[in-house]
């Protein structure tokens, strides 16, 4: 909520599709409402007045305190309020220890979440953000509870002031589950601003190599990871995936979140999800447990109470980034060291969203789907993607309207595990993707495979498995499908759906399957190129003379599904 005038109510109302007045006084509304929202206030700002709820002797010492107390106990809240107003208007007394008198911000946040939770239509999950960033490296986690206010009120959020060590956060989560019987999970922010620490296989404090206990806790409490948000991409980096021609997407990695430490090449392997998924296979071999076995989502990380992700309707990452002719010049994070380490508006994307395949729209259904990793992330578009893996698919299933049912009966959904293949069995995948009804057509569906070979080395390969205009766009000598082209007019910030497909399906069998090798498979879906918010600003505010000629004015928005893992005997 840093620096924002808008509060929780506005965030929920905006997410539900209502028009709200933005921090800069503009009328803001989404094109379509969101189905669910977690307002994750930084826990370091919480706990304002925890502790002594009622009958605080400190408070009762003053006559005002005594009067307020008596009125409240008699159920006369309104009178108490007006008494307080009068007292404050006089401004004569200091606030004494009136922190004690207030209920905690946490409980208030929970109360607001409860007000807007409307299962079936709109779900407000209770959560907060743990803001650990030792040395400026972003290790933030969004902590999400399955439970209602009645249970979550019984705790105080564990903050980075309590500890910046993620293992302490997990210990707190374990205590919550074992002592109160609730359920809670944590979602790491994208790792690109973490100075090579988000997926470092070392204990945070001791810097010793992680062990099986660490791996078990991480897998248990961090079932999903954010790979796209306003501050860039955490899927993969061109240095890690030189063969992947779509890897250079919204890379934001000059420095860490503090703008303190430049990112150096040896940090990169420990910042990106795909590499972590690969290393996870290695570590599982070593430790018996995979610490990096996570599904993939996106989220906004919006700090303005206006969670929005459409390039042509982006309300910014923070109040200073609300639509204006100036915002493209904004510096989100100013480095104290060197301007080349700044995180500037020009680097930001209008990203991202989390898609959840849940049995219903409720806290429990959404949380359970997140826990089983049946989720996908998008760079902000509402495109939809789903994948199943199994050994017995014929490929006919994909054409039936209830394909998901048969796909599930004969296989596992995204986030699931394929058990060891029997003699002669090869896994295949059923995939469907559909464009955002208000957005751009699709370019292609890809499968990203990672595996561990007999010598303990990991590899990755990206396969094009379905694409638009397949009769004209044939694979090149390198096995890759040629570019879909572009219909973008950068100057006018327009595009047309004259290229691409409205929906794509695939039945794909791994051509290089080795039943003895651990592997994972996830799906990436690309849209055709579209203008970015920078192009829309340039056009809408007529900034042709001011904005640079070269800037990220177009991009291919995308979706990533959670992986399906293959586990040999």
């Amino acid at each position, binding site marked *: 909520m*840093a*620096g924002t005038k808008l509060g929780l*109510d506005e965030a929920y109302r905006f997410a539900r599709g209502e028009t709200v007045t933005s921090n800069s006084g503009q009328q803001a509304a989404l094109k*379509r409402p969101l189905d669910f929202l977690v307002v994750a206030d930084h826990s370091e*700002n919480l706990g*304002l*007045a*925890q*502790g*002594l709820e009622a009958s*605080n*002797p400190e408070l009762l010492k003053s006559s005002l305190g005594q009067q307020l107390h008596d009125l*409240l106990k008699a*159920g006369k*809240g*309104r009178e108490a*309020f007006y008494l*307080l*107003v*009068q007292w*404050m*208007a006089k*401004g004569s007394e200091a606030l004494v*220890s*009136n922190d004690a*008198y*207030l*209920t905690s*911000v946490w409980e*208030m946040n929970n109360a607001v979440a409860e*007000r807007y939770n*409307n299962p079936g239509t709109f779900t407000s999950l209770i959560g907060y953000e743990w803001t650990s960033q030792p040395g400026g490296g972003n290790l933030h986690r969004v902590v999400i509870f399955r439970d209602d206010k009645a249970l979550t009120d*019984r*705790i*105080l*959020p*564990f903050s980075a002031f*309590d500890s910046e060590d993620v293992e302490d956060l997990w210990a*707190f989560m374990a*205590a919550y589950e*074992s*002592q*109160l019987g609730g359920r809670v999970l944590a979602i790491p922010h994208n790792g690109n601003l973490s100075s090579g620490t988000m997926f470092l296989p070392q204990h945070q404090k001791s810097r010793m190599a992680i062990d099986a206990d660490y791996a078990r806790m991480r897998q248990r409490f961090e079932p999903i990871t954010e790979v796209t948000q306003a501050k860039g991409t955490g899927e993969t980096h061109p240095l890690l995936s030189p063969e992947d021609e779509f890897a250079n997407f919204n890379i934001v990695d000059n420095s860490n979140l503090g703008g303190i430490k430049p990112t150096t090449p040896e940090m990169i392997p420990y910042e990106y999800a795909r590499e972590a998924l690969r290393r996870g296979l290695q570590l599982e071999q070593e430790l018996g447990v995979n610490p990096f076995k996570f599904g993939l989502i996106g989220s906004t990380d919006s700090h303005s109470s206006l969670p929005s992700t459409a390039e042509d309707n982006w309300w910014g990452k923070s109040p200073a980034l609300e639509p204006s002719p100036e915002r493209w010049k904004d510096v989100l994070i100013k480095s104290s060291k060197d301007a080349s380490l700044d995180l500037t508006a020009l680097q930001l994307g209008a990203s991202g969203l989390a898609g959840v395949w849940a049995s219903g729209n409720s806290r429990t259904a959404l949380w359970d789907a997140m826990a089983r990793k049946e989720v996908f992330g998008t760079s902000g578009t509402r495109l939809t993607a*789903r994948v199943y893996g199994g050994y017995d698919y014929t490929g006919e299933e994909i*054409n*039936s*309207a*209830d394909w*998901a049912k048969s796909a599930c009966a004969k296989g596992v959904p995204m986030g699931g595990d394929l058990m060891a293949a029997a003699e002669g069995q090869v896994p295949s995948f059923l995939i*469907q*993707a*559909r464009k*955002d*009804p*208000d957005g751009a057509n699709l370019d292609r569906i890809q499968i990203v495979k990672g595996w561990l070979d007999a010598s303990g080395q990991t590899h990755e390969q990206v396969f094009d498995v379905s694409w*638009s205009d397949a009769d004209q766009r044939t694979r090149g000598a390198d096995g890759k499908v040629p570019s879909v082209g572009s219909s973008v007019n950068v100057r006018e910030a327009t595009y047309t759906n004259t290229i691409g*497909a*409205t*929906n794509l*399906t695939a039945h794909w069998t791994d051509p290089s399957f080795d039943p003895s090798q651990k592997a994972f498979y996830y799906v990436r879906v690309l849209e055709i190129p579209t203008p970015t918010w920078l192009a829309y600003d340039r056009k809408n505010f007529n900034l042709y003379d001011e904005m640079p000629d070269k800037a990220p004015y177009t991009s291919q928005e995308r979706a990533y599904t959670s992986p399906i893992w293959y586990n040999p005997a």
Partner: protein
Amino acid sequence: MSWRERLHLLLKEPIIPFLMVGAALFGLQAFWSPGGSQGSAEIVVSDEQAATMVKAFVRTWQRPPSQEELQRLFDDHVRTEVLVREAMALGLDRNDTIVRRRLRQKMEFVNEGELKLSLASNQELQGHLMAHADSFRSEPLVSFEQVFLDPARRGDRLNRDAAAFKAQLNSKGQGLNPSALGDPLAMIESRWSEERRSELVAQFGSTFTDALLEQPRGSWVGPIPSAYGMHLVRVSSVKPGALPPLEQVLDAVQRDWQADQRQDQQEELYRQLLAKYSVRMPQP
């Protein structure tokens, strides 16, 4: 009154037994006491502050702190106190944006918290419901079937195919399975039952949904366009959105009414505070 007795008074939750165990663990003598000599600035961790710290610890960890942990809490509190005092002596709190925002936030919380908003009478709620009818009106619910025709597959044949399918569907009626006709459309069902309008907008786009609501009932019509291509549709029913009676939305109206009340009170508070000041500012 000993601090443990006060603690007992202060904490009325079921964690008290834990706390008392915790209290017994470290004992009174372990309680931090200030050591500053006379004349130097004194830092005292009061009984209430100690109790607050213990309670916060218990709510975080669901167990009482050990003696060492408690000592750490106290030490940390003292460290904060020392640095805050020194920072304030240097004037670091002045003109600090974050400090100012925090103070503003704290002020805004003053009228929240313990203060219970009064409940509205049924009459007030009815009035609120009528005044905000648009927010409480239920959405239209649409039941229909659709057959998708993909322009990418059918090209010029699309209109001819659509006409032929429509004729088939209308003449054979229930005997024909609509999902056997037409083209697949990823993750879109052919049959929809009492679906909310907003969900249809999310799935098909608003152009299609608006057109769908206008179609005659009971027979196959179209094709009508969506974000994906063309659709033959048969609408069986549209339940119009309606303003529900108060009983059905009592909780929601009550919440909404209280939210307004809360906002009014915040504004009222601010107005009264503002009245203490004369404000001058440049012409914007």
